[in-house]
């Protein structure tokens, strides 16, 4: 078992002594943005064209759904949100801190990426995880 929490996805970085952040990969040739390690660009086909950069913690809500039925043990309803980040990159996560009601949610609303424990979920070895969430900004 690890000493501290593990990152929920490979592109969530936890520098020692620093703040966690999300990492993007950007194609040096065409500017396409990706999440997670990769070498080649699937937009333009350029090889070995990737540079890493820190994704913004600010963005806007692009689309969403309100999930009322899920698998056993998952609290519903919750908002599954797709967020366009400032400076490029689109990520998906739970939108928290707002009622799960379409009347209250607006397209394009500004949101902030926040980091917190992964809802108490632990893996088979008992490790806890750090996840990210969206909050209205």
């Amino acid at each position, binding site marked *: 078992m690890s000493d501290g929490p593990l990152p929920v996805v490979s592109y969530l970085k936890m520098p020692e002594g620093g703040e966690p952040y999300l990492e993007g990969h950007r194609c040096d040739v065409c500017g396409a943005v990706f999440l997670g390690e990769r070498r080649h660009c699937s937009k333009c086909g350029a090889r070995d064209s990737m540079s890493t950069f820190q994704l913004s913690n600010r963005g806007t809500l692009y689309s969403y759904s309100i999930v009322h*039925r899920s698998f056993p043990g998952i609290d519903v309803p919750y908002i599954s949100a797709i967020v366009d980040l400032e400076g490029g990159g689109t990520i998906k996560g739970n939108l928290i801190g707002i009622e799960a009601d379409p009347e209250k949610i607006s397209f394009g609303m500004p949101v902030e990426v926040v980091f917190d424990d992964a809802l108490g979920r632990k893996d088979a070895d008992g490790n806890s995880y750090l996840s990210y969430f969206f909050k209205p900004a």
Partner: protein
Amino acid sequence: MADAYVVGVDMIKFGRFPEKSVPQLGAEAALLALDDCGLTVKDMQALYCGNLNQASGMVGQRLLQEIGQTGIPVVNVSNACATGATAFREAWMSVKADVYDIVLAVGVEQMGKGLLGGGGGSKGISKEGLLGSGTMPSVFAEAGLEHTRNHGTTFEQFAKVSVKNHHHSTMNAKAMYQIETPLEVVMNAEMISYPNTKLMCSVNVDGSAAAVIASEQKARELGLMDRAIKVRASVLTSDPWQERDLVMPDVNSCTRMASKAAYEMAGVGPEDLDLVELHDCFATAEILHYENLGLCEEGEAGRLIDDGDVELGGRVPVNVSGGLLSKGHPLGATGIANIYEVSTHLRGEAGRRQVEDAKIGLTHVIGLGSACGIHILEKAA
């Protein structure tokens, strides 16, 4: 290249058949399609068999073990919800390429109940409900609300798709359900992922469908041109790169690419279509595909459903079979079942749900991952 024709086509009534095996279900449709054109398995020169859940299980060969092991080449096909359409297209290509002159295509699936998608990886912890949702109802809810964002499409307009398709299915004895669902019933059904209620999600069923495809020369030799259906276009696409597609599967681009190519291949436009069977895996998806297939202008999809243009009797009836929403969606069979539906109308044999004077029809399926298959069919002259 000479044209290829559907000379025999049929499907079983969709339902739940846990007592049967996948090859047995496929064999039923194969025999129905062979009976439809008065041929036997001994007349078939190759089999293209689509199935998803037993993709590594040699379903095509096991199907022949049920109905006749003639030693013909068998190709097993798996391509998400475009599996059946892909099997059909491979069969069509083999005839177009003049490798064979008469072949069999089968699509078959046995489904469990419940949510599809959202399983996530095996390592670490489940991401479902933590990093949003990966279930199919949510993915298609998010694609639907993208349309709302861009065009103001309402929950009620999405729901009307289900009212229409469930109504159509009351005229189709082969549909899983034949039940009217008024608007308030659809909108007040259990919410699965807003804006998709339970009645706006396709039905997981078992099913199979099959088609016999022949060259024009072979069809004439066999005296089968009377009820033959010409394949005017067959197109398959995969998903082109899109900026949000890492987190938001894009069902639009590959459909748009496919429909453009299909209209070009067929030399027709959307205004020439008498009916369409499109991939209504969720009510939200059907709305998107009105525009993706060019049935209306950009942003007009909500109006199209409001005005009744896509109902039986309307300008371009969509999913008169009841669609995936009510006929059911046995993944690997769906792409051939919709070819059966359009062919049946073009033959004038669709009974109560017949689209009057139908001459040209289009079928569309899309599987996430992604694969889009479109066929344009016409009654042989």
